[in-house]
C-alpha cells in the first residue's frame, strides 16, 4: 500500500500494465519525454523506452486512428487525449471504427483500446477545458465508459480497462487529480493524502468494470453520481442532514442496474447529479431506467441536478458548476416531493 494522488494512481496503473504486457503502448500529445501536461505519464518513456511511450503530432484523429490500427494488430494501446474537450476530431474514429470493429468484422478484428481523457470542470477551464462529454460515448454501442472518482478506483479501473478486450473511454475528472473536491471552492483543497481511498495497493489489482459502489449508505433517498459529483453529493447530504444513499456509478456503460435498482427500491427516492449539461445528458438515461425498474417504489419524481444547457462559462464557473447548495436543494425538494 502507498498513498497516491489520482494522477499517481493512473500513472501507476499504466506502469504496472506496461511491465506486465509488452503489448501495452502509451502515447498522445506531450505524453512521452515531458510526461504529460498533468504528469500522468511521467517517467514511463524513461522506464520503457520511446517505442512504448511516445509523443504524437497534434491530431486526435491520428492518435485514435493509429491506436485502432495497433489494436487490430494485437497491441493494447492506452492513449491520451489531452482534454476531453478535444476529443471531437477523434469522434469519427471512436464511434465509427473503434466501437464497431468487432461487430462489423464478426470478431475477426477487435479493438482492445483505452482512450484516457481528462474531463470535468471546477478549475476555471472555460469552454474547452471543462466539458463532460460522457453522454456522447454512452450513446455509442460497442464502447465502455468509465469515470473514476478516487485514486484506488482510478488505478484498479484503468488496469481493468487496459485488460478489457473492448474499447474503453476512460474519463478522468481533472478536478480530482490532486485531491477530492466537494464544490466548496472557497475552502482550501484537502490533498489525497488525507483521504482513505488514496491508499492504493502497489502492483497489480483490478476494480471490475460495470460495478457501482455505495459510498454512503442511507435510507431516505438514493443519489446517483460519478466523478467529482460523488464528493459534492456527500457534502450536500451532510449539510442538509438527509440520510441519503450515495452511489458512485464508476462505470456508466455497462451500467450496474442491480445496485441502482436495489437502492431506489429501498429508499423510494432518487436524485441524479452530473456536471454535464442536462438535456439528453446521461442523467436522462438513468432517470428513464430507474422509473422503469422502480416505478411502484417511487415516492417522488426523480430529480436531476446537472450543468446548465449552456457552454461551460469562465467567469460564472460557480454559478454553472452544480455545487453542494444546488444539489442540497434538490435533496430537500425530493424529500418534500
Amino acid at each position, binding site marked *: 500500500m502507498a498513498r497516491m494522488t489520482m494522477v499517481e494512481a493512473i500513472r501507476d496503473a499504466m506502469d504496472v500494465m506496461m511491465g506486465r504486457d509488452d*503489448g501495452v*503502448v502509451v502515447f498522445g500529445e506531450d505524453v512521452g519525454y515531458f510526461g504529460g501536461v498533468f504528469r500522468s505519464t511521467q517517467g514511463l518513456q524513461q522506464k520503457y523506452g520511446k*517505442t*512504448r511511450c511516445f509523443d*504524437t*503530432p497534434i*491530431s486526435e*484523429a*491520428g492518435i485514435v*486512428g*493509429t*491506436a*485502432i*490500427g*495497433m489494436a*487490430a*494488430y*494485437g*497491441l493494447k494501446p492506452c492513449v491520451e487525449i489531452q482534454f476531453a474537450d478535444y476529443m471531437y*476530431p477523434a469522434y*469519427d*474514429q471512436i464511434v*465509427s*471504427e473503434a466501437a*464497431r*470493429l*468487432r*461487430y*462489423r*468484422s*464478426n*470478431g*475477426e*478484428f*477487435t479493438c482492445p483500446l483505452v482512450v484516457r481523457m481528462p474531463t470535468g470542470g471546477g478549475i476555471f477551464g472555460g469552454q474547452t477545458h471543462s466539458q463532460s462529454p460522457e453522454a456522447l460515448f454512452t450513446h455509442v*454501442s*460497442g464502447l*465502455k465508459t468509465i469515470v473514476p472518482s478516487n485514486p484506488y478506483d482510478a488505478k484498479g479501473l484503468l488496469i481493468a480497462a487496459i485488460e478489457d*478486450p*473492448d474499447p474503453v473511454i476512460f474519463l478522468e475528472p481533472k478536478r480530482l487529480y490532486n485531491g477530492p473536491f466537494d464544490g466548496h471552492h472557497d475552502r482550501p483543497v484537502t490533498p489525497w493524502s488525507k483521504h482513505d481511498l488514496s491508499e492504493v495497493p502497489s502492483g497489480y489489482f483490478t476494480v471490475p468494470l*460495470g460495478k457501482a459502489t455505495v459510498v454512503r449508505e442511507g435510507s431516505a433517498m438514493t443519489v446517483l453520481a460519478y466523478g467529482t459529483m460523488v464528493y459534492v453529493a456527500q457534502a450536500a447530504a451532510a449539510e442538509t442532514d438527509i440520510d441519503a444513499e450515495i452511489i458512485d456509478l464508476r462505470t456508466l*456503460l*455497462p*451500467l450496474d*442496474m442491480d445496485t441502482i435498482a436495489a437502492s431506489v427500491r429501498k429508499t423510494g427516492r432518487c436524485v441524479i447529479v452530473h456536471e454535464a449539461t442536462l438535456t439528453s445528458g446521461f442523467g436522462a438515461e438513468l432517470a428513464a431506467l430507474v422509473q422503469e425498474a422502480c416505478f411502484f417504489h417511487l415516492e417522488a419524481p426523480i430529480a436531476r441536478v446537472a450543468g446548465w444547457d449552456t457552454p461551460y462559462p469562465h467567469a460564472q464557473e460557480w454559478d454553472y458548476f452544480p455545487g453542494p447548495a444546488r444539489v442540497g436543494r434538490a435533496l430537500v425538494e425530493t424529500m418534500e416531493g
Partner: protein
Amino acid sequence: MTSHQPLTLQVPEPAVRPGGTPDFSNVKIPKAGAVPRPEVDADPESIRDLAYSIIRVLNRNGEAVGPWAGLLSDEELLEGLRHMMTLRAFDARMLMAQRQGKTSFYMQHLGEEAISCAFRKALSPGDMNFPTYRQAGLLIADGYSMVDMMCQVYSNSRDPLKGRQLPIMYSSKDHGFFTISGNLATQFVQAVGWAMASAIKNDTKIAAAWIGDGSTAESDFHAALVFASTYKAPVILNIVNNQWAISTFQGIARGGSGTFAARGLGFGLPSLRVDGNDYLAVYAVAKWAVERARRNLGPTLIEYVTYRVGAHSTSDDPSAYRPKTESDAWPLGDPVIRLKNHLIVRGVWSEERHKQAEAEILDTVIAAQKEAESYGTLHAGAKPSARDMFEGVYAEMPPHLRKQRQQAGV
C-alpha cells in the same frame, strides 16, 4: 469604402459535362518506359519528379519497356490477367444480381481491376491491407472464396459477417484484408497504426493503406501522412485517382493543383505516380514500395492514375454528371485489354484463348453464384439469425443487451 473589386469564389468544374465531347488533353501522359526507376533507398528529395510524372511499362504496341519492366514471368502475367477477368466477371454478375433484387447494393471496379489485383501480388502473407470498398481485387488475387464474397453481398445464412454489414464491406483477416468501413478515409490512418505496431514489435510485416481521390480531402488522410512520416512507419499509402468521387470530379478535391502524389512531398515521403491501368507498372511500383517498407526505409505514397468506368454504385447514374462516352476517351485505356495485348505480343496468349478464358471464368463465377444463392439472398431463402444482431457488440454481452435480445424474442 474600399478601392478593391468585389471578391469572387472559385468553384472548379470538370472540363466537360453530359452532352459535351470528352476531353482528356489536360492529362499529360508520358511515354511508357520514360520514367527512371530509382533505388529503393533513394532519398525522397532526389525523386520528387516522380510525383509529377506517370510510371508506365506497357506501350501502345503492347510491349513492356523501360526500367520498371521485366519483373513478372509469363505465368504470373497470365495469372494476373485471370484475376482481373475474374473480378470483372464477378462484378458483372453481382451488378445483375442487384438489378434482380437479390441484394440491395453493389459497387463495381470496372476499369480499376489492375490496381488491387497487381498490388496484392507484391505483398507477402501476413501483410495487411486497409482497403476501401473498391479493392476487392485484393481478395480475388489472394484466392479468397468467391462464394464467401457473394454470401456477404447477399447477406445470407453463410454470410461471414452474419448479415450485419452492407454488401461489399468484406472482411478477411486470413487474406490480409481489414474490415471495410462505410466511413471514408478512416482506414488510411489505421493502416499507419498497424504498421507502427509491426515496427514496435520488430515484426517484418507491412501495411497497405487505400483511399480514393475524393477522400484525400478527409482529415484522416492528412493525419495518416503526418503519422506515417513522423514514425517512418512500414506502410504503403495508396491513392486511387479514378477522376470521380460519386458526381464530383477530382478537381473538387483539388486535383489538378499539383498531383495527389505530390501531397506526400510536403511530408518528405517518396511519392510515385503510376499508370493504374498498366498491370505491370502497378506491380513494379508496388514491389518497389513493398521492398522499401520491408527494409525499414519507411513509407511510400503512390497515386494510381485511372478512370472509374462504371457508375459509382448501383445507386448512381453517371450520365447525370459526365458524358456517357467519357471512359472511351480515357487515354490510359482498359487494363484487361492492355495486358491481354501484351501477352499476345509475347506469344503466350491469343484472342481465341482469351475468349475461351472468358467463358471458363464466367462458368466459375456462375457456379459460385449458384452455390451462394443456395444459402439464400437478401429477400429470399435462408438468412442470418436475428440473434446474430446482438452478438459481437462486445466480447461478452452486457446485461442491457441481453435484456434487449430477450425483448426482441430471439
